[in-house]
């Protein structure tokens, strides 16, 4: 889920007319000093990370003077909190707190409604309070069509024993909070503590907001880099992978690194699943055989061959892995030969030297396995293809055998060569790439098999040479599904005239840096 930092969430609260403490975010001790000086009051410094319990971790400090704030912030910058390096600190005025509350909204899957929660006590330890003093907590399910009315908010808060002017102030706050949640498609929003100051004002002293991943496209203003469940900022390679996902709506591609630098002795493999349930099952199977995962990856929902190709290239941008394991549910509805071709193109380009086990069970699995067996038999690494009647456990065992029987090979990152467009080639654009056909070579072609292989009928013969059979614009918009069939046929059975260029933005530079680091 796309999490916002506290300072971002507070900017949204402010835009809604909810009071938040005076202050802003800093990236260096000097900036901390500047902001503290501007505030001209005692301040609080709060590390900006995606986790609760920052106070216990030592991530919240108080300072009387700007100089003190600067000194304290030096300890906070660079602190490591659960994989998360502190780069930003929120500097705010210290509130004069009279009383603390808790307010939040979550989406309840059982009632299928947003649920507003209010507690007459707040601050740290809220979960224990909720367990021990349920009467202080009040909840209200919202009918989205009706919305959340102020009288409902008053009724909700009244039940925790709050009366009078305070009741009015809090209920007006709560309605605004709900409106903000709907406006920003919040999966959850939480203000803890919600504070009553000694001069009688209501302030949101802290705020966590999680935006629905699937609605991030509606909120470009939030600048969310990756709309995914992450508990730390994304790695470089994850960002590269996410761009692929974002630019191609066909099927899904999820990529997550367990480690950025796998130990060559650590038994790490590249993992490539298909479908959530099948991926989890397959992951269990390889873990049980003593492997560790360098990454988790899932291409599913009928992805084109080009997406599987890019996923494989990204997985193989991780050094020191000793095997490649791809496996899904085993009985997929999608046509499995598309994925097979994606693997073929990637493994050939990479001259894969580590063993790979690819389980492509499901619709057209026989053809998928045949594609793997036919085209990958001559690469250095041994590749085995399996289908629906081969269990994940069996396949994981095969990988273990291949790794142990052969000479142990450790995957090394290859540089990606600068792409040069072949001269004088016939070419056309596809949704995410470009197809080149060197017509000079087509003269010697006997079969013209590329046209037949293109099951979507994008190609036709013109004077014995393959050309587009339809409007180039339609092809670019997706009529060519980037199934790679024409290229693979031509490369293996004919004149090597067809090449499909499928760029992955940033991968070349990423690998160059890795290689530099290695040397």
């Amino acid at each position: 889920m796309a999490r916002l930092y506290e300072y971002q969430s507070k900017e949204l609260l402010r835009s809604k007319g909810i009071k938040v403490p005076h202050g802003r975010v800093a990236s260096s001790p000097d900036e901390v000093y500047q902001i503290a000086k501007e505030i001209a009051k005692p301040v609080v410094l709060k590390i900006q990370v995606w986790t609760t319990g920052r106070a216990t971790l030592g991530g919240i400090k108080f300072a009387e003077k700007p100089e003190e704030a600067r000194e304290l912030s030096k300890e906070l910058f660079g602190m490591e909190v659960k994989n998360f390096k502190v780069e930003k600190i929120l500097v705010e005025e210290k509130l004069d707190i009279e009383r603390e509350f808790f307010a939040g909204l979550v989406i309840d899957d059982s009632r299928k409604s947003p649920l507003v929660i209010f507690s007459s006590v707040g601050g740290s330890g809220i979960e224990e309070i909720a367990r021990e003093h349920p009467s202080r907590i009040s909840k209200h399910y919202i009918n989205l069509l009706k919305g959340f009315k102020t009288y409902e908010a008053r009724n909700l808060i009244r039940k925790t024993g709050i009366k009078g002017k305070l009741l009015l102030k809090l209920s007006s706050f709560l309605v605004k909070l709900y409106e903000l949640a709907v406006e920003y498609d919040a999966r959850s929003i939480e203000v803890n503590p919600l504070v009553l100051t000694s001069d009688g004002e209501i302030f949101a002293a802290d705020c966590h907001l999680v935006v629905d991943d699937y609605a991030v496209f509606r909120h470009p203003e939030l600048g969310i880099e990756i709309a995914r469940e992450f508990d730390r900022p994304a790695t470089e390679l994850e960002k590269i992978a996410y761009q692929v996902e974002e630019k191609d709506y066909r099927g899904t591609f999820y990529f997550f690194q367990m480690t950025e630098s796998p130990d060559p002795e650590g038994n790490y493999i590249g993992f490539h699943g298909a479908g959530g349930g099948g991926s989890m099952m397959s992951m269990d199977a390889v873990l049980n055989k003593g492997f560790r995962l360098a990454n988790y990856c899932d291409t599913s929902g009928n992805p084109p061959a080009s997406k599987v190709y890019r996923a494989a290239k990204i997985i193989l941008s991780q050094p020191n892995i000793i095997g490649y394991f791809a496996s899904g549910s085993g009985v997929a509805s999608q046509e499995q030969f598309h994925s097979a071709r994606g693997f073929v193109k990637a493994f050939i380009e990479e001259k894969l030297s580590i063993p790979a086990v690819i389980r492509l069970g499901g619709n057209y699995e026989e053809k998928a396995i045949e594609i793997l067996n036919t085209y990958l038999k001559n690469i250095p690494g041994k590749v085995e293809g399996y289908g629906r009647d081969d269990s994940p456990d069996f396949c994981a065992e095969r990988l273990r055998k291949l790794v142990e029987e052969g000479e142990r090979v450790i995957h090394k990152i290859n540089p990606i060569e600068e792409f040069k467009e072949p001269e004088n080639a016939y070419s056309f654009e596809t949704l995410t790439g470009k197809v080149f056909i060197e017509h000079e070579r087509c003269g010697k072609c006997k079969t013209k098999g590329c046209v037949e292989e293109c099951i979507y009928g994008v190609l036709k013969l013109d004077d014995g040479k393959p050309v587009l059979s339809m409007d180039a614009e339609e092809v670019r918009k997706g009529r060519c599904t980037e199934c790679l069939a024409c290229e693979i046929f031509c490369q293996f059975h004919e004149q090597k005239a067809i090449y499909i260029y499928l760029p992955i933005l940033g991968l070349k530079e990423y690998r160059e840096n890795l290689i530099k680091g290695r040397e």
Partner: protein
Amino acid sequence: MGILVNEKTRVLVQGITGREGRTRTKLMKDYGTNIVAGVTPGRGGEEVLGVPVFDTVEEAWEEKGPFDASVIFVPAPLVKDAALEALEAGVKLLVLIPDRVPIYDVLEIVEYARQTNAKFVGPNTLGLLAPGKAILGMIGGRAETARQWFRPGFVGVCSRSGGITSAISYYLTQKGLGQSTIIHVGGDPVIGLSLPEVIKLFEEDEQTKLIAMFGEIGTTQEERVAELIEKGEVTKPIVAFIGGKAAKSGTRFSHAGAIIEGLRGSYESKVKRLREAGVHVVDSFMDIPEKAFEISQNLK
């Protein structure tokens, strides 16, 4: 019998002229599903595989209605509109295929469906299949494989993972156990018919004698299945597998979720609750058919 769909169900396809709509209409028709009409705004008057296409659901209903079900293949941001259009026209069962539908859109569909007394499956679903009768969605990929993989029988299959829905059913067929209805409830946190709701339908269905369920970490669906059994509302035997044992749970970011869900949602919680309620939870996915077979022996 089976639940929700049979060969007589009159089916509408929304988004029938798109890449997915076309391909899946072929699958559904080839399998014998009674596809009556299609809708794509702006493409009225065309035909897809002999199915007439209309500009609006209302128009399709006037010409070819009534419809019992609508299968929706439009892009995710348009799903809400398509669903409301179908509900307003009077369709009582929707199947929302696309994934990445914003959660507040789903919540709105939930409220409209409540008002019109309708049900929906999904979003993010492969749909459902009644062996030998009909497919709503895309389970099986091709009619030929669907006929091979799934056979009529007495096991009700429900799953939160698409691929696994087919996998469980296929391995049951291999073991000689046919299925009453196969349903992928969808992978999202908020869905129309969730596991407990589907299991209640299986409970009422005469053909179903035994239920196979694939659950996952997250949400409270499996715990609610356990509650149904404890309340005596579900009595048929259930074989279950819960995925995600090895998955690392995310660092906690919110207290609100914890206040509501407590410790529900984790792998351990689900397995424990289900076992206490008497569900046969197997430790390995591939044990499902074996266990189902064993139970089926005692049914006779």
